[in-house]
């Protein structure tokens, strides 16, 4: 028994059939659609590595049932760049060399992109608060803060 789900990913219409209504969006994105921006980190919504945008809002795809995004518009890290040019955050992360292993970076960029829409020019404390629930294990935090700040000044 499968349930059809239609939604949009990075501007493209997608039709999937899911055999379990509880399956999280993350597995559809990574395995069915081969998108590797969103990453599996905890499956508990605690670390943020799986973050994507659903109708423009940052959500944790590892705890978002696929059935809940029916008819919605998903953006992943792969879809963040518009018209072939990198998103200001992607540029800023390169400029600040704000990556170590990079496993958390999807979440950092996707969370920050949502945050910058509501607060385009944040100060450092606001950035720290905005990313307080995103975990980086390598300790890249100071560079990530600098990158978000740089993107906010762009």
């Amino acid at each position, binding site marked *: 028994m499968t349930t059809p789900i239609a939604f949009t990913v990075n501007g493209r219409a997608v039709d999937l059939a899911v055999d379990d209504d509880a399956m999280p969006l993350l597995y559809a994105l990574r395995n069915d659609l081969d998108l590797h*921006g969103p990453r599996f980190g905890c499956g508990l919504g605690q670390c943020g590595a799986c973050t994507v945008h659903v109708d423009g809002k940052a959500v944790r795809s590892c705890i978002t049932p696929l059935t809940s995004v029916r008819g919605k518009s998903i953006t992943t890290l792969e879809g963040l760049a518009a018209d072939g040019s990198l998103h200001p955050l992607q540029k800023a992360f390169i400029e600040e060399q704000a990556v170590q292993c990079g496993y958390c970076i999807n979440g950092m960029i996707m969370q920050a992109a949502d945050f910058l829409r509501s607060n385009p020019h944040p100060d450092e404390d606001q950035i720290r608060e905005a990313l307080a629930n995103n975990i980086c294990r390598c300790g890249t935090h100071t560079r990530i803060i600098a990158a978000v700040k740089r993107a906010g000044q762009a």
Partner: protein
Amino acid sequence: MTVTKATTPATTATSRAALAGGSPKHDARRRDFLSAGGALVVTFALDPTALRAAGPATTAGPAPAAGAAAGSQPPKTVALDRVDGFIAIDEAGKVTVYSGKVDLGTGVRTALTQIAAEELCVPLASVEVIQGDTLLTPDQGVTFGSLSIQVGGMQIRQAAATAREALLGQAAARLGVERATLKVADGVVVPAAGGAGGGAGGAATGAGTQLQGVSYADLIGGKRLELAVDAKAPLKPPAEYTIVGQSVARLDIPDKVTGRFTYMHDFKLDGMLHARVVRPPAMKAKLVSFNDWECNKLPGYIGVVRKGDFLAVLARSEWGAIRAARALEAKWTAWSGLPEQAKLWSWVRTVKVNKAERFQDVGDPAQALAAAGARTFSASYDFPVQTHGSLGPSCAVAAYEDGKLTCWTASQATHLLRKQLANMLSMKVEDIHCIYLEGSGCYGRNGHEDAAADAALISKEVGLPVRVQWMRDDEHGWDPKGPPTLLDHKGALDDKGGLTAWQSEVFIPDRPKEIAVTLVAADLAALPKEEAHPGNIHASLAIPYAVPNIRCSANWLAETPFRPSWIRTPGRMQNTFANESFLDELAEAAGVDPIEFRLRNLNDPRGRELLERLAKLANWAPRAGTRESGDVMRGRGVSYTKYELVRTYVGMVADVEVNRSSGEVKVTRCYVAHDCGQIINPDGLRNQIEGNVVQTVGRTLFEEIMFDRSTVTSRDWESYRTIRFPEVPAIAIDLIDRPGEKPWGAGEPTAAVVPSAIANAVFDATGIRLRSVPFTPQKVLEAVKAI
């Protein structure tokens, strides 16, 4: 190994029906728990050939046959003493470097590219680095111990220098000129003084025309550099460096910020099955029986692989495997052999000492401690069990076919893993091929090798490619742990405040001869296995100070609660925490400023320079005035080490705020002075130092594995707390570059000085000595009450 397929015909029939989309037939016997005898039980639904594609063709990453003999050529050498072990140059002049050391998220691939490009005198963009492929890359040892540049990079540098010199010689012969008149620029051998630059591919022309260059591609392109590495091949003078010493942007970052990068977790094979391992709820519980009836109702469920206490479910889809793991019913024996956590340190003192070993022995500290007029001090320090906590739980893919195993892994030690897999599976080492793919940040021997062993064991049993992805719960619960570490220190001051005696003892788990960590799968399945080695955790117990009487010894313990391994700065962090905290206590007792006290006992000019530069960077001044009386008390502390007493110098000043009411310690600012000799990539080095500081502030303030008598109970990021953005300090760094010196490691040393700098700052702020990591609010509040 005997494989007993499907315990009952009904099993197969049921599962086939499920796979075909039909309703599972109810069979009374399926309701019974499958008997858990000693033999391997594989309840496998499919004819393995049905799912197998035309061989395990890759959909991403390198092909499994990469590096195997192409045509009639024998396989590429991976010998450490051969230039072609490390370097190949193709017809287009592209250079491939084969590195046994791998990038664990540190940026070392970029640094190794710089080293090779510099020494070969080719553009950075023409160098590609292949990492950790057992058929292609020399076994340069485990990627640990801050040795990737210091050892791995220098092996590559020497091979590159040998290649360059040989190619210069060839060019001289071909051009008919003296070799001394030639140099290499951008991969082309050209006249050293003036003359034509020569375009790539240009060859010498006849006499009478201006001498053109000859390119590496023309000289060797496509042929192997069949040369022994010449240990005496002259290295390029650092004054001529144009690539080494530059903050070259990391090569992997553009792909990592756009989702194009292929991590281990992204790797797929056609026909690959997904597995999840179902682990005992108590660490050493035995599997009594299991029942996969509920699993059979799940679409895409394939079956169970069981051997001994190793139990895994297989499904066509990843989510299917997760559901099956949750649906599987298993009965386990009870086990509660862990010590009581609240009494861990007294338990450690009761463990049998296999042997005591001295690591520093100067003068007679016992006599100095007993000397008339000596003021003696003692203190004990402890450091908790911690997890690597990689952000991405461990993952691996294995494909067993026709007696050969290929394993894609994020292991820091593919060559070692290959040997361990061979041992576990009773296979020949040469029948196993391990290929490195970068995983989530790796800070030591974490779960990567265990996931690889899970996948290999399952794949060998079912004869199909298998992907194993650990869940968060597996990672926190089952990765090997940094062992609990206890230290006792004693010291003596003379009547002038001079440090006359130093004695330390550390209590750490004993180490087997071989540096390897037991594979969980081998342990659970009762297959051949290695003992667990905790890493060289006695290192940095010895002190870098010129004290007249010193005795530092390790008590190697017969037992430790968890499978131990090395986690970033293993032992060096724990030992330096105790050493530099105790030194601070002695400085305070002597009434001497802590930096001044260190300088008084330090003869090493490089160390003294570092401390002086650190004092300047931090604008250090001896404490004046009394401690603050308000809720928030501020202070600063210092710490210093020469890593393992033989390499990188590092010192740190930490500024902290301690909240008297809440007990919270906040590290507001850290200053680091760092001297690792020649710097390959200054920004990459800063990134590593920053990471060391931030991660270790978290380890010092928050991180501790919690456990009951049966197992680890802190299995997620709520119960195992690490640092978060609001708690991250500002960091100032002074890099001391010494281009003429050897490059030393930087992946770990800074972490060594962080816990003690914080502890000493807390003392400076409050008068409280925190001797037990992590510095939780509860411990601070208890200490505040006691004063």
